[in-house]
């Protein structure tokens, strides 16, 4: 009897010791890497932004100057709006992530709009489009997404914010019209939202999110 208890205690003790050792190892590694990982995530996000808006156009802390909006036109979920400024003057805003309906699942976009209402650019953050057809929206697959740069609600005129097949100016891909059509529509909606809410977007005081969401 006693011997059995001893065995159980012995096993439990060993398990406990290894639990503690394992937890120690993990927490040590975490302390050593946490800062670097957070920095990595910020940089990965900023690298994406700086592809659209040049780094030297901005002098504020983009990641601190952020508000959260909710608009069914842009996304079912919350959208973060990062405000880029130079000497306090508005330069651009970055909407992320904006959701566009896709062929299979929603496409998540980053849309950067300059203060004058023109597009600094659009990037696809994630998508599940058909390989070989709809996935040409991805920057690594084709240049299509770069075509938004410089466009605004006047250029082309609002009636032409469609893919060519529907009488607009934007290219579609052969065999996949739905994906580009939806993205064009979503980007247009984002521009319209910006036009309507411009004032508020830049004036509303920045939030201090506990943990900035990166994508």
């Amino acid at each position, binding site marked *: 009897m006693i011997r059995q208890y001893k065995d159980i205690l012995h096993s439990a003790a060993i398990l406990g010791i290894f639990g503690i050792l394992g937890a120690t190892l993990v927490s040590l590694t975490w302390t050593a890497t946490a800062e670097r990982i957070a920095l990595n995530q910020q940089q990965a996000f900023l690298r994406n932004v700086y592809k659209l808006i040049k780094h030297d156009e901005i002098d504020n802390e983009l990641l601190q100057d952020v508000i959260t909006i909710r608009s069914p036109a842009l996304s079912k979920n919350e959208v973060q709006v990062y405000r880029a400024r130079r000497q306090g003057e508005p330069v651009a805003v970055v909407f992320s992530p904006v959701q566009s309906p896709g062929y299979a699942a929603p496409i998540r976009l980053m849309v950067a709009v300059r203060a004058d209402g023109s597009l600094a650019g659009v990037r696809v953050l994630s998508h599940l489009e*058909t390989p*070989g*057809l709809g996935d040409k929206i991805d920057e690594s697959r084709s240049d299509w997404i770069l075509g938004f740069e410089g466009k605004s609600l006047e250029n082309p005129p609002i009636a032409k914010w469609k893919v060519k097949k529907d009488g607009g100016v934007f290219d579609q891909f*052969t*065999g996949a*019209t*739905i994906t580009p*059509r939806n993205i064009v529509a979503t980007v247009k909606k984002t521009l319209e939202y910006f036009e309507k809410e411009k004032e508020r977007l830049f004036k509303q005081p920045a939030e201090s999110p506990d943990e900035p969401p990166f994508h």
Partner: protein
Amino acid sequence: MEFPVHTSPYGQLPNNVTRLMAQVLLALVPGIIALVYYFGWGVLINIGIAVATALAAEAGVLHLRKRPIAPALMDLSAVVTAVLLAIALPPLLPWWMTVLGVLFAIVMVKHLYGGLGYNPFNPAMAAYVLLLVSFPLSMTRWLPPEMLNQNPLDFLQSLVVIFGGQLPDNLTWDAITSATPLDEMRTQLEMHKTISELSQNPIWGDFGARGWEWIGNWFLIGGLFLLWRKVISWHIPVSMIAGLLISAGIFWAIDPESMPSPAFHLFSGGLILGAFFIATDPVTASTTPRGRIIYGFLIGVIIYIIRTWGGYPDAVAFAVLLMNMAAPTIDYYTRPRVFGARDDGHD
């Protein structure tokens, strides 16, 4: 000591296989003529390429496997696979894609699994899926049917396009190709158009798309011939069509403006061809009568699901492959009870 293992159907002699396959080929003729009439010479060229490749591949693999070549070539099964694949392909597909598909069907799907009678998956459909997934652009480039085609290509021009990739001087791909009706329907519905709105377009006929809606009927003639000759049984075609019609009917009744009608589904894509010629493949389908009904019905339901909510516009190939996978299980649970066996499973 090795015992020969046979899968069902039992009692088939090689010359029976030949007779069976010859009848299948004969039954395909009306449908093929209709395809050529509506979509031009490309269909015939594809069939030619596919059959030649299939025979060469079959001979090559049999040689590697040190099996007798002549009888296997004579049984025409490779030819049937090739023809079924070829008529599912767009008429102007580049020749090497057809070749690649047929090689895949014969070498990987048929012979790597043991050859005729042992392959768990329908070779023609597996090859179709390979091509569709790998070359989605070329595989969705169909031609408009004859009455809508502004720029029909003659035989020589079709040859040049297929083998050289060269379009006649004044034409572009966008000018001569068009989406399939299923594709078009899906695209229009995604734009939130209602069915009554989009049926104004001249491409739509009485119940499907013009031209396309008639092809099914021609394949149906062949299918009925196979039924009459007892090459296939009624279970799979009937239950497969029922599965699709019932699913489509339910959703159509709920929302006729955004769900295409059962008739549209019946006469679009490869449904009739699939129901009579592809799903009935004796090697890969379920073999018990009750099993066949379940097998066919579920194919119909899956086709509807994929056509409506899936990532690709037509789904006969995907549905057939999925149910190929389920066929052994279905057979296991639907085996007719042996006479004298007890209910509790002990005998």
